[in-house]
Structures are given as C-alpha cells and as structure tokens.
C-alpha cells in the first residue's frame, strides 16, 4: 500500500504548524536577548519543513522523543504554545512547571515523551515506546528526532539493532543540518548516515530536499505506514539547515559555515516556499495566507504575554516530582 497524498486541509495545517514554529522561535530568540528567557534556546528556524513534515505523518496516540533543538517537535505535534513558552520562561504555568526549560521539554498531551538535553539519550526511550506498543498490542508508532551529530553516538546503533530485531514500530528521524555545533558533519562522520540503516536490517531513506515539506511528509508517512503494518523501523535522514547560530546568544568567532553555503540555504526558506506552493496549487490565496500568518503572530503574541504574566513556580515545586510519592524537604535537607 502506498500513502495517499495529504488533503488540502492537511497541507494548510502543515503551513500553520511551520509558521507556529518559526514565529515562536523568533519570539523566543528575542526574549533570550531581552533576558526574559533564562539560559539559552536552540531554534528550529530553517528546519520547519523537516520537523512538521515528520510530525504530520504521525497521529494522536503516537509518541515522539527529541533533543535540545526542542520546541519544534512538540509544536509540530500541535502543542498549545502558552505552556511551552511559559516553560521557556520558567513559570508555574509551564508545561513542565518550569522545571525543564527549553532543552528539557515534554508535552504528554501530544505524545511528547521528552526532549533530551543530552544528545542521543532519548533515542532508546522511543524504542521503549515501540516495545510497549507491541507488547500491549496498541497500534501506535514512536519517532525519535536526533541530529547529524547525535548520529555518531553508539546508543543510536544499539537502538536501531534492537528495534530492528524486535520489529518495533519506531522511526529514527535524523535531522541532518550539516553541523554539530561548530563541527561540520563531514569532518566527524564517516560515510553517509542513511547508509548505516542497511547494516542494521532496516530501510534507510534520505530526503535530499528537507526544505520541501511534501518530500519529508511522503518519506516519513511511508515509514510510519510500514511501522504500523508491523514491518519494523526505518531510518529517515532529512537534509536541512539551521538558519541561526547553534543556540541563541552563543558567539563563535570562527566562521565555520561559509557565506556562500549560508546564502544558498537561506534562499530555501521552507515557510516561504510552501506558502507559494499552496497559493500556486490553489489551496490558498495571498489573503488567506496573510490571515494565517496574522493569526499565528497573534497566537505567539498571546503565548508570550501569557508566559511573562504567569506567576513563578512556588518554591516548594522544586521538591516535587523527584519520586511519585510526596517527598518532603525533611527528606532532602
């Protein structure tokens, strides 16, 4: 069976989610600069097609795990923005009560099991979600997002081998944005990541133009479909690019990405490109797109205000959730 293309409604929703990531991350970046968000954030700006194309191939009940480049994944699953932004700001209304922050988000309401600040570390968690699906006979799929840098961590190959031998419904989604922090992928990665799949008995698919959301969606939907049929995991490598620095506020004075390369990729803006597609295919007009962008801008405006106006977590919240039973200060002091 092949996957039928997405409906116009789905395509419009894709654009909406890409916009939500774009505007949310742009706002988060500003809020870091203004000191409204403590620490730092890693934006998915430029990678929206790769994120949303993958997430839209999933359905309610499926699970995802992710990494430090974290907001895009839950937003791609349609997380409400308010609790996410409140989490970045460290407020009581944050999706993790202000205890996780940007790098360590989870939103159970959309199947997000957790973004891991430790790269690669959340990969086997998704394998476990696949295991429980199989053992409990629940027809769900688990997808883990990780970068080209994390693709050099051994746990990925242990996880691929385990998922493959057990034929678990898991998608290994490699976000290849060509760099791990300041390190060019080709200088630390032997061979092509996608080619590592076959040695572990699973198909490997590479989306060469990860800026084109339809390409990403089609490839991932095929993999998800395969997983649901009980045929096991797939490795999907999506070629993309981050438009901004590794993390907000980070200053690396070495030009590790050359200007020409940057220019080429910046011209491939997934949000702009797909807007044109939607209009060209008659699914939208400039006016409806402008409206959508205005709506998203308003939504992000609201979530930022919600976050900034929310109260700080009460001091005692720091001492909750270490264990399932209540844990009093007396225990820890």
């Amino acid at each position, binding site marked *: 069976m092949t996957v039928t293309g997405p409906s116009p409604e789905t395509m419009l929703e894709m654009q909406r989610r890409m916009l939500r990531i774009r505007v949310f991350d742009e706002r988060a970046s500003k809020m870091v600069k203004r000191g409204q968000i403590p620490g730092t954030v890693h934006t998915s700006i430029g990678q929206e097609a790769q994120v949303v194309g993958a997430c839209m191939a999933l359905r309610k009940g499926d699970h995802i795990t992710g990494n430090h480049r974290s907001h895009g994944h839950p937003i791609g699953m349609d997380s409400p923005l308010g609790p996410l932004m409140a989490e970045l700001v460290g407020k009581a209304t944050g999706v993790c009560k202000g205890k996780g922050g940007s790098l360590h988000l989870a939103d159970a309401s959309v199947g997000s099991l957790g973004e891991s600040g430790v790269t690669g570390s959340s990969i086997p968690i998704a*394998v*476990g979600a696949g295991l429980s699906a199989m053992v409990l006979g629940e027809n769900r799929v688990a997808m883990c997002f990780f970068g080209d840098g994390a693709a050099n961590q051994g746990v990925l190959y242990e996880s691929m081998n385990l998922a493959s031998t057990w034929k678990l419904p898991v998608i290994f989604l490699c976000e290849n944005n060509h760099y791990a922090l300041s390190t060019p992928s080709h200088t630390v990665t032997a061979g092509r990541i996608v080619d590592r799949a076959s040695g572990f008995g699973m198909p490997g698919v590479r989306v060469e133009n990860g800026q084109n959301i339809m390409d990403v969606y089609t490839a991932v939907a095929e993999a998800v479909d395969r997983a649901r049929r009980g045929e096991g995991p797939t490795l999907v490598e999506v070629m993309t690019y981050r438009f901004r620095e590794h993390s907000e506020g980070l200053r690396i004075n070495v030009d590790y990405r050359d200007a020409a390369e940057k220019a080429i990729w910046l011209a491939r803006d997934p949000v702009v490109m797909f807007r044109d597609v939607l209009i060209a295919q008659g699914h939208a007009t400039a006016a409806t797109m402008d409206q959508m962008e205005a709506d998203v801008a308003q939504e992000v405006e609201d979530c930022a205000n919600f976050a900034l106006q929310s109260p700080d977590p009460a001091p005692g919240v720091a001492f909750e959730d270490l264990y399932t039973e209540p844990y009093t200060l007396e225990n820890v002091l």
Partner: protein
Amino acid sequence: MSIMTYIAAIGAAQREAMVADKRVIIIGEDVESNVYGTTGESKQRAESGDFVHQFGHARVRNTPISEEAMVGAAIGAAMTGLRPIVDLSYSSFMYMAMDQLVNQAAKNRYMFGGQSSIPVVFRSAMFYGLNTGAHHSDRPYPMFMTVPGLKVIAPGSASDAKGLLRTAVDCDDPVLIFEAVPLWGQKEEVQDDEYWIPFGQARIRREGTDVTVVAISGAVPLAMKAAEQMEAKGISVEVIDPRTLVPLDIKSIIASVRRTGRLVITEPAARTCGAAAEISALVCEAAFDALKAPIKRVTALDMQVPFSPALEPQIYPTTERIVAAIQAVCAA
C-alpha cells in the same frame, strides 16, 4: 513457610510479579535460557517452571549485548504502560547504561514536572569474592545513591529479597536492586504466599545493648557471626540491616545508637563515599551527643579487586575485622 535460597526467592518474586500483572516483562541477556537461574524453576527449558513457557516470548525477552539501549528501552516502555524488570546480570556492566540510568531514569519525571512515571526495576548481581577479577566484582551501589531520583535497595536475606523485589516491581519509580552473589545460596524461611516489604524500613537482625552494627548486603552474615562471637565475650551487639539504602531508615539507626552509644558500619563497597560514610555522617550530625566512641567503618578497601584467591579476600570486610572494630569502639 519454606526454606528457600536468596536466588530462589528472587525467582519466586519475579514469577509472582509476572503472574500478578501482565504489564510486567523481563528483559536481559540470556534470560530465556535462564543462565543466571532466576527465570526458571530449574535450568531445564523443557520444564513448565521455565518462564518462557509460562509467560511466553513476548514477556521474557533475550536482548542483544546492548545495555544502554536495553535500559533506555525499559525506561521508555515504563513511561508508556509496561513495568519492566531488566536483568543486567553483573553490576559491573551497569556503567554501559549509566547515561540512561542517571540522565533518563532518574531525571525524566522531575524535569518534566511529573508528566510521566517510570516503573522499572533494574536487577544486578555483585559477584565479588569469587575470583572473577576486577571487571566482574564491583559493588557500585554507592555511586547510584548519589543520584537523586533513583531508589537503591540491597536485600540481605532471602525473605527480604522476595518481599522487597515485589515492592520494587509495584513501585512507580525506578528501583535498582543489588544482589550480593555471596548471599545467593544462603537459605532462610520464606513465606509461600505473596508479601511486600515497604522501602525505608530497616530490619533489626539481632537486638543488643552495647553497640550497634549496621550491616549492608553481603556484610550482614559477617556481622551476625561477629555478634555471636562478641556475645561469648559478654558484649551485646545490635545488628541492623537497612535493607533499602534510598530511601534509608536513618531513624531506626539513630534510635539504636541512642540506646547503645556506639556504632560500627560494615558493607562490601569500597570505603570512599560509600553508604557507610553517609550513615556515619548522618549519625554524627543527629546523634553526636549520644556517641560514646568514634564511629568505625568496616568496608572493602579503596582498591580494585585482584583475581588471585591468595589476594582477593584481603579486599572485603571479614568477621574478624568487624570483631576488631566492635572491640575498638567498646574499648573507647
């Protein structure tokens, strides 16, 4: 009641837990063939006693030698509906999965504001004193005591092993259970029916009035022997096994020290930053006024484990060293 070995009690608890709750699964290397003796009545696959036959391959699963993925998958499975028991065999292999144990098992629930719980049990066996060499003889439980979010238990007898393992499987938090292989063969009266021993309740193995000996895991029988020898010398020794180290029943230990005024702590782990150090520090903080003598530790030396039988016994606590410590604190 029946007389049962420690390892048989572990097997019994696993079987009871598998019967009681379909969400419980066992994963690990060579669990299907029952290599380590806790997933079958005997090692005879043919027998009905075998876990694979009783529960099926879906719930009793051999894994590749991939500790990190195995542990991570167990955590993910626990976050999504299963209650896995992971057999890590030797404790010395846990380091392969350290990131998953420390960064995922211990932190996820907390970091995510309680959105998930992680009901998973990690079993490992401390094969020390058996000439298995430094790669197979670690007693690393203190390392895990330093990690908030993990529960760490170390049963000292067969009946404790059965009741504590049942509690561990029913616990909604990650539990690490450390089994001392020198105890595997030790027998004790064990209830045949199901029972659960709550965490954080020490077991007074022997009452006494002159000195308190806190003994952990494989050091418990040594402490009991030492106590008998001292009795002959007219010194009354109270032996307490905390049984669970996180949470730790410090109240019972302090209450005992307030009665006796003297404390010796013995454990098979190395000295530096061990459980004995923590207990010593807690007692010194909370019961300093009651102390009549310095607190003494009788632990393994801060040394790796040599293979030769001519060397290895020097590393661990012995009844003799415990006796000497008791005499020293009683002389003070």
